[in-house]
């Protein structure tokens, strides 16, 4: 296979998309921390489980938003750019 601009572009796109998704690490760790805290809180105070659950899902959503931005960037790189 010889070198061509198209092949290099595709290569760059794929590598870039993969690198973009590294940001999901933070979201994963964040979701884990949020859930761990929420589960501990529920274990200590089961009566407040409903309220904690709502706030937990809210926190997970915010943490997940970071991963979603990564996904958006990856999709843009793969399908839109160039």
């Amino acid at each position, binding site marked *: 296979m010889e070198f061509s601009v198209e092949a290099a572009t595709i290569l760059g796109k794929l590598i870039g998309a993969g690198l973009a998704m590294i940001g999901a690490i933070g979201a994963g760790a964040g979701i884990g921390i949020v859930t761990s805290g929420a589960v501990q809180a529920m274990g200590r105070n089961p009566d407040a489980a409903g309220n904690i659950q709502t706030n937990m899902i809210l926190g997970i959503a915010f943490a997940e938003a970071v991963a979603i931005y990564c996904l958006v960037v990856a999709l843009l790189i793969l399908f*839109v750019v160039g």
Partner: protein
Amino acid sequence: MEALGLNLPFLLVQIVNLLIVYTVVAKWVVGPVGKMLEQRRETIAQGMEDARVAGEARANAEEEAAKIKAEAQAEASQIVSDATERARSAGAEVKSAAEAEAATAKDKALAGIEAERNQMLGDLRGQVAALAIAGAQKLVGEALDEKKQHALLNDFFAGVKDGSVIVLADADLSGDSAEVTSALPLTDAEQVTVKKDVLAKSGAEAVSFLVDPSILGGLVIKVGDKVMDGSVAGKLEGLRANMR
């Protein structure tokens, strides 16, 4: 944007579609289900309320029953105690009535016995006097004036001479009540005499008469804490003491 598949007409179609679905869901699902949930909640609350009311009613009934029972018990015990009390008082009444009756009967009997005895003793006294006179006539050999003899004997028995009590001739007496004991019952005249004399001498208010054959004759008069022994027995005792 085209590469991501976003295009305005489809987006608008989706929005319109979502609004249609919202209308359908809000009208046909959320409304009826919400109403049903509300109804069910109300039914459950109603059931709970009913159960609570029923429970309260039952508790009230139980309380009422307990109260009625307690009242009945109190009444019953009241009746029983009343009956017992009445029975007791009736018994006591009967008993006291019987006792009183018995006492009166006894008193009456005693009085009858006393009267009979006095009567007998009175009769006896006449006979004794007659026998004594007859015996004395035989011994002395001389006939005494019968009237005089009687007076002597009377003096002997009654301890009364010339209308005054011998024992009290020179006694100093004082007291509230006097008690006069004689061997044989005194006649009414004698009693009056003795009473008058005793009262005058002692200042006592009342005089009672007793009969005691063991003193043989004369009178024993007790006023207050003083005893004047004018009895024949006392005299004989004194004589015997002197002769010894």
